[in-house]
């Protein structure tokens, strides 16, 4: 009996504590993530807090299920509807399964947007993509060109030949290569997102193209393997490895100089922008309609397409100056 009593007493204490923490802010914006305890989303929450501080009178409710399930997120959404929050900004575990719950939220006057991982159009007012295919395609060639003022040969190390995302990005890249005079894309090879195969393909590129100045790998597996291959071949300084990668995996190669810079979304900016959009929609300062744009504070404006989705910005560039700040985050 006493165990139970103690348990209940502590529950009461906990309840009072948590109850007391909720203050009477003017507006409550819930940032719902795929699961708690993931560095990427913790960073997004930091960005949301930054936006809240900038706006003033906004309370951020950072929440999500323990594991990445749609059912867990629905429980969270129901609790948020019950609390009558002003806005929900969600990174969805399932683009379809959340639609009924989010529709209910919208029916009860709650602003609903998705970010990072989207919800089907029926279940949200707008969706914020971290970036867009044209922006990514442009960024990966720009990363290589920025360190080649005199031009030179570059090669692409992709995932598999059938990888949809990579193929779209490479197509977009080829469309804008003309804007970077002197840069020649000499080959595209496929490492199938396997570390060993990517490593061998990178070795092959170095052997086939002695004048190679940069390897662009728009895949997190490929870029690490290519950086390792360049390091092992003793070609640091001759060949720059760049592309899309995670700071945690690339910090070492930035330090060694095998990679001068790379890009990926910035979760802090993403959380910040999602909060700004949610605020502007909830306060009727903007509307989520196709063709309209919504302000995102320091991130500029987002333009919505026919499905009311928009891209936040260029992928964020990481180099020696900032990679160590982010490597512990994701």
């Amino acid at each position, binding site marked *: *009996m006493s*165990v*139970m009593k103690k*348990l*209940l007493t502590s*529950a*009461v204490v*906990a*309840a*009072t504590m*948590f*109850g007391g923490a*909720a203050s009477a802010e003017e507006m409550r914006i819930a940032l719902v993530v795929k699961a*708690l*305890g993931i560095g990427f989303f913790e960073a997004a929450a930091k960005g949301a807090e930054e936006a809240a501080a900038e706006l003033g009178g906004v309370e951020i*409710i950072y*929440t*999500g*299920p*323990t*594991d990445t*399930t*749609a*059912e*867990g997120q*629905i*429980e*969270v959404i*129901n*609790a948020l*509807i*019950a*609390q*009558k929050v002003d806005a929900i900004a969600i990174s969805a575990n*399932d*683009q*379809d*399964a959340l*639609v*009924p719950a989010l529709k*209910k939220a919208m029916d009860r006057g709650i602003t609903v947007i998705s970010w990072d991982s989207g919800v089907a159009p029926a279940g949200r007012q707008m969706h914020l993509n971290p970036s867009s295919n044209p922006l990514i395609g442009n960024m990966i060639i720009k990363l290589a060109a920025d360190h080649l003022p005199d031009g030179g040969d570059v090669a692409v190390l992709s995932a598999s030949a059938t990888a949809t995302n990579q193929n779209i990005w490479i197509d977009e890249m080829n469309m804008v290569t003309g804007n970077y005079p002197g840069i020649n894309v000499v080959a595209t090879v496929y490492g199938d997102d396997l570390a060993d195969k990517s490593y061998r393909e990178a070795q092959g590129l170095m052997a086939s193209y002695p004048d190679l100045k940069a390897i662009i790998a728009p895949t997190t597996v490929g870029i690490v393997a290519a950086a390792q291959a360049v390091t092992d071949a003793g070609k640091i300084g001759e060949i720059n490895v760049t592309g899309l990668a995670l700071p945690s995996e690339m910090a070492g190669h930035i330090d060694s100089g095998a990679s001068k810079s790379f890009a990926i979304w910035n979760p802090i900016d993403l959380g910040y922008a999602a909060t700004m959009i949610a605020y502007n929609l909830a306060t009727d300062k903007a509307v989520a309609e196709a063709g309209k744009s919504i302000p995102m504070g320091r991130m500029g404006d987002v333009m919505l397409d026919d499905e009311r989705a928009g891209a936040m910005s260029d992928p964020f560039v990481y180099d020696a100056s900032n990679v160590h700040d982010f490597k512990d985050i994701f």
Partner: protein
Amino acid sequence: MNLQDGVKARFIPDRLNSRLSGHLKSWETLLLAVAVVVFVINSLSSPYFLDAWNLSDASFNFTEKGLIALAMALVIISGEIDLSVAAIIALASTAMGYALQFGVGTAELVAIGLIVGVLCGTFNGVLVTVMGLPSIVATIGTMSLFRGLSFVVLGDKAFNGYPTSFAFFGQGYVYWVITFELVLFAGMAVLFGILLNKTNFGRAIYAIGNNPTAALFSGIRVARVKMILFMLTGLMSGLAAVCLTSRLGSTRPSIATGWELEIVTMVVLGGVSILGGSGTIVGVVIAALIVGMVTFGFGLLNVPGIVMSIFIGLLLISVIALPIVYRRVRKG
């Protein structure tokens, strides 16, 4: 535990034993008290708790799991366990989604969900009663098997586009804020209560859980009863799959991940002995309410899910430890 304890434990049978009957009664009273306390704490700590629509939304936290917990209670009382229930949901839901591609209607979808559930349960039953495998091992195996099949069919895709009339099972209201799922759960709870307490079949479940050999020698067809229990659990999992699929409006192979443990938690919290032989449906129903209210209450306060898990874990451990400590203390 010394020998005497062991012997005592063996004699914990069912409610015919008067001392145990008193104990069980006090157990459910205790549970009810916990439920009331949780209710009061929730009402005091959040202004949003006492709201008919909010409570109605919150009932989804336990209705589907509760449906399976009713059948799981019988399985555990009989001395077995079924850990494949969540995987059955996944497979039944996948089968419904697959059938949907051929344009079948709502009635057929429900039938398919239930039939796949029963088939999965039958498969478990055969493994346990015919092949003689321990149920914990057999159902851990089928847990991977059933969910694996869903992954084979679906991969990273999803089935959606269920008909509008199908949405009633998981999103419909019978009257005002009373959801279809809540009514279904209440109705099933009554049926399972009657089955367990008022029928020969129910008495046989207790007998088997206490002593399968003695039960066999008293003319109870042990294998058949167990077979029926696994089929029943499969059926209830299929029913839960219908409700959950309807509520989500889509099927993914990861649907209902981890539910088996939450369901076993409800059953054990409800006072069903994990060793088999004792427990009541009333206890399981109250436990389902408690789990649902605790989840919702914590959700309203935006307490991270992991804290909820810790709380439920502590509740479970104390619930299992309490009777043992109590017995030790009484013995001096």
